[in-house]
């Protein structure tokens, strides 16, 4: 097992000791959300500014079925993944026809469309008040109402998601998506149907977002209207960029930094988004690869300056 996996396992085990359980759970949920976006943004070079569309749609659909039909957890997860994938297929089909700024604006505009649908459709979504009363049924007789139990379940699903995403980015599809990011014309000339490959990235990314959406609904027992709003879409882009887009672990680190900052600093300092803004500027100006790149650069720098290391140990 690689060092990165050991570090993540350690984080999964240690996090609930240091951080409130609900926050710790939210970190891994947001990380799953980020994994999905990263396939689009980091690996395929598609800046989707509408990921909340898939997150929110899945949360509403699964939340509704949980609340009114009492479906079991597995069905709820499957619903979320399916709704995430299908909504991403719809949105993706329209968006992959365009590129650059038009692509970004389309993902954003379609996100707004879904948002206002949720806002207006009060009989189902509860509109501005959100959809409260989403239950958290037990899994195979195991009660997951206790925060720590739910944390464990989410952490397991996160590890599974990370493993699946690793398989995908290391598969031929992952390579093809990266080649499209690098040079669309060349990928096409080699025989790859570029729009279809981009659509595949959308669907997979949407499935991950959908999974995160259901877990989020079950975590707080409510689907808030914001979960389908553009701020949420922006947050996941933000978190992924800070962590490092285009590297497998980037969105995981980004999610940790983002959720931890927003939950812990916001309690003591109302203007905490300022801090995020500064972090964002630093990343864009100096570390385009986010924390992951900063980390790698630090180690190459250490290796290139053995003298400083000796000084430090003295």
């Amino acid at each position, binding site marked *: 097992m690689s060092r990165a996996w050991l570090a993540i396992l350690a984080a999964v085990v240690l996090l609930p000791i240091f951080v409130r359980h609900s926050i710790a759970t939210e970190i891994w949920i947001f990380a799953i959300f980020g994994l999905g976006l990263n396939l689009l943004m980091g690996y395929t070079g598609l800046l989707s500014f509408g990921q909340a569309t898939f997150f929110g749609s899945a949360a509403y659909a699964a939340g509704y079925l949980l609340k009114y039909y009492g479906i079991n957890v597995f069905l709820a997860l499957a619903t979320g993944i399916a709704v995430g994938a299908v909504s991403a297929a719809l949105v993706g089909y329209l968006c992959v026809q365009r590129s650059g700024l038009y692509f970004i604006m389309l993902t954003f505009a379609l996100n707004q469309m879904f948002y206002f649908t949720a806002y207006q459709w009060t009989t189902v979504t509860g509109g501005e008040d959100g959809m409260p009363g989403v239950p958290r049924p037990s899994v195979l007789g195991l009660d997951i109402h206790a925060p720590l139990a739910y944390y464990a379940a989410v952490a397991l699903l996160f590890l599974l998601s990370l493993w699946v995403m690793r398989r995908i980015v290391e*598969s031929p599809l992952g390579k093809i998506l990266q080649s499209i990011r*690098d040079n669309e014309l*060349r990928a096409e000339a080699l025989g790859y149907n570029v729009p279809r490959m981009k659509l595949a990235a959308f669907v997979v990314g949407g499935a991950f977002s959908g999974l995160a959406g259901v877990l989020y609904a079950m975590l707080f027992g409510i689907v808030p209207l914001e979960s389908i709003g553009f701020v949420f879409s922006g947050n996941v882009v933000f978190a992924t960029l800070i962590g490092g887009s285009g590297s497998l672990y980037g969105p995981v680190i980004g999610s940790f930094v983002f959720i931890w900052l927003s939950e812990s600093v916001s309690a003591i300092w109302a203007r905490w988004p300022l801090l995020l803004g500064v972090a964002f500027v630093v990343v864009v100006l100096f570390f385009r690869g986010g924390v992951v790149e900063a980390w790698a650069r630090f180690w190459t720098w250490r290796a290139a300056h053995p003298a400083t290391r000796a000084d430090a140990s003295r």
Partner: protein
Amino acid sequence: MPLVSTDRVTKSFGALVAVNAVTLAVDEGSLHSVIGPNGAGKTTFFNLLTGQLAPTSGRIVFDGRDIAGTPPHGIAHLGIARSFQRTSIFPTLSLLDNVWLAAFARQESWRGLAWRRTDAYPKLAERAMAVLEEVGLAGKHGEPARAISHGEQRQLELAIVLAATPRLLLLDEPAAGLSPDETKKMVALVRKLKGRYTIILIEHKIDVVMSMSDRISVMHFGSVIAEGVPAEIQRNAEVRRAYLGGIAPP
């Protein structure tokens, strides 16, 4: 029977006729060069063959099938591979991945597309290393493509094209922007491919074209003004006019 032929293929952009009723046939295994001054329509002609552009009129027949208007990825699956005038590679990927992707695209089945690890395709890896070897870049297979020199990048693009196991090779000025030394290397590489592949070559260096080609077509203002074996082209008065400052269209 020719492997590829065009019949009065035309492409116009509004009032501009970039490629004007070009008829040409390339025999299997031969090297056919297309020469002509800048703006003669050579690259546009390539773009028609590879599906980047759809012809306004005319037919393009490859291996007995009319392929005009087929999208580029479809053309690639038929076994037509091209190099671009401006180097077109995958800069952040390793040299090996660059050629591996070309080899994978031509697989009969894409099993394991989203799940198998890329190193679980031993035949592809072998083929990828073989073509890197052929262009002399095997020693750098792990380096990202952006890290090698411009000359090496042009060699890499040739390797990408070869890894696609093409039946027809379209080379658009493979020696563009190369130093005299690098040019020599590239010419030697292309010469090695002659006979093994059917090649259409766009090139400006007349001596290279004259010494290598089986047949040559000369384009000027979108039309083919002459076609023949190198010796015929050399004698052709119209060709001299086109190259030696004759601006009037034929």
